[in-house]
């Protein structure tokens, strides 16, 4: 049943200060809406619980990508198109750039925002494994001020996040320390555009300099759509770190991946398929990382 627009209130205060004041005045009563690519879908289906919405689309304080020598700060209101088109994101954070390219079609990339992807908290959010791999930090803002938290741990359960009712995600910070890494990402879905991932992966790896045995110096692995939250595979990382990439290691990493994830059967795929694909993606990443040695 379609929603009646007369049942809903939407205001656009126009400044971040006004928005956080509103949230502070009635905590939990106002749902922020940016590009609407998630909120409007719920609304159209008659499933939007919040009756009071506050527009944060185009708020200047949430836009822009600030590049500093050691860190890039991405405004939460940046769209996927902004991410795709930014030269520093494309060059230094290709996992995020490719996730932006895979999200929806062009029309949704022009409206969907990075902050919205985090706040919507879908286990299938395309950009989220990339944020885990790059160990992103979030800047949260409220009338009381700002606080900075690691993205890892921000999602605590299905659609649950550590965001106080009066808080808003203001920005995402990425350290510029991944230039020597091999970046690997894949999305497995029914089609390229407009498909929600059955499984997606974002991974980073670096081989030990001068080592002859393809020894892993550093590794980060994150998967989407395989658990109630986007998952970082710390056990697999610990297993692989400092080891040489041999077939036995790849086999153990696959088994550990299968054990670490909690995929479900749903409209898009089955738990069994997701487990097989997730393990294979981890294996493919390790094998491609090993082959980097030949390139170096």
């Amino acid at each position: 049943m379609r929603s009646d627009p007369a049942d809903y209130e939407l205001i656009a205060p126009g400044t971040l200060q006004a928005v956080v004041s509103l949230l502070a005045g009635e905590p939990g009563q106002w749902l922020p809406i940016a590009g609407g690519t998630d909120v409007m879908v719920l609304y159209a289906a008659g499933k939007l619980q919040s009756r009071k919405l506050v527009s944060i689309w185009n708020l200047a304080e949430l836009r822009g990508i600030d590049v500093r020598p050691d860190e890039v700060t991405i405004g939460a209101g940046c769209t996927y198109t902004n991410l795709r088109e930014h030269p520093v994101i494309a060059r230094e954070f290709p996992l995020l750039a490719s996730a932006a390219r895979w999200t929806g079609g062009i029309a949704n990339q022009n409206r969907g925002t990075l902050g919205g992807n985090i706040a919507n908290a879908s286990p299938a959010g395309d950009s989220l494994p990339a944020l885990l791999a790059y160990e992103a930090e979030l800047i949260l803002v409220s009338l009381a001020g700002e606080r900075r938290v690691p993205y890892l741990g921000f999602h605590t359960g299905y659609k649950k996040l550590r965001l106080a009712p009066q808080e808003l995600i203001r920005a995402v910070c990425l350290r510029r320390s991944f230039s020597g890494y091999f970046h690997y990402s894949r999305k497995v879905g029914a089609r390229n555009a407009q498909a929600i991932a059955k499984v997606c992966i974002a991974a980073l790896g670096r081989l030990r300099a001068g080592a002859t045995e393809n020894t892993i110096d550093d590794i980060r692995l994150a998967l989407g759509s395989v658990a109630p939250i986007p998952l970082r595979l710390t056990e697999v990382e610990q297993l692989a770190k400092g080891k040489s990439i041999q077939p036995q290691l790849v086999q153990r990493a696959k088994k550990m991946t299968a054990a670490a994830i909690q995929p479900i059967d749903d409209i898009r795929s089955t738990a069994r398929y997701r487990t097989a694909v997730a393990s294979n993606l981890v294996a493919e990443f390790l094998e491609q990382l090993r082959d980097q040695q030949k390139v170096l």
Partner: protein
Amino acid sequence: MSQACEKRHQRELSFTVNGKLETVRIHPMERLLDVLRQQLGLTGTKEGCGEGECGACAILMDGQLVNSCLIPALQAADAQVITIEGVADDPEASALQAAFLQCGGAQCGMCTPGMILSASHLLRKQPAPTLEDIREALGGNLCRCTGYMQIFEAVAQAARPRTGR
């Protein structure tokens, strides 16, 4: 708070549609798609899925391709909107329309306005697109008639005169 009591009122919204300033009375959460079709009579913009998956309702808002079914009307305040009705005035887009006719890129016509707008958005950004670029640009537009090949060909043909320049 005052906002809580003062709801369910319509308000005035002004924005520019196909070059003409329009003022309409809306509920802020009304979909821009419905405002265009029902209040302004611009029925060239189609509703397909109503959830941003099919691209039939695509329009240009401030030069950006967007799905109008996902835009609350309030967010269109002061925007410049171009719908399919407005593209005939644009020489690039009308070249696209001619190419769609020549190549058989339009059959039932339901997806065509969105296809033309997506393609025109592409050609503004990339005047000489590859087939890969065309496929990606139209990835958010579903067509159940053509099988897509005629549509890709039409976009390539419309781009060709400029590619040759």
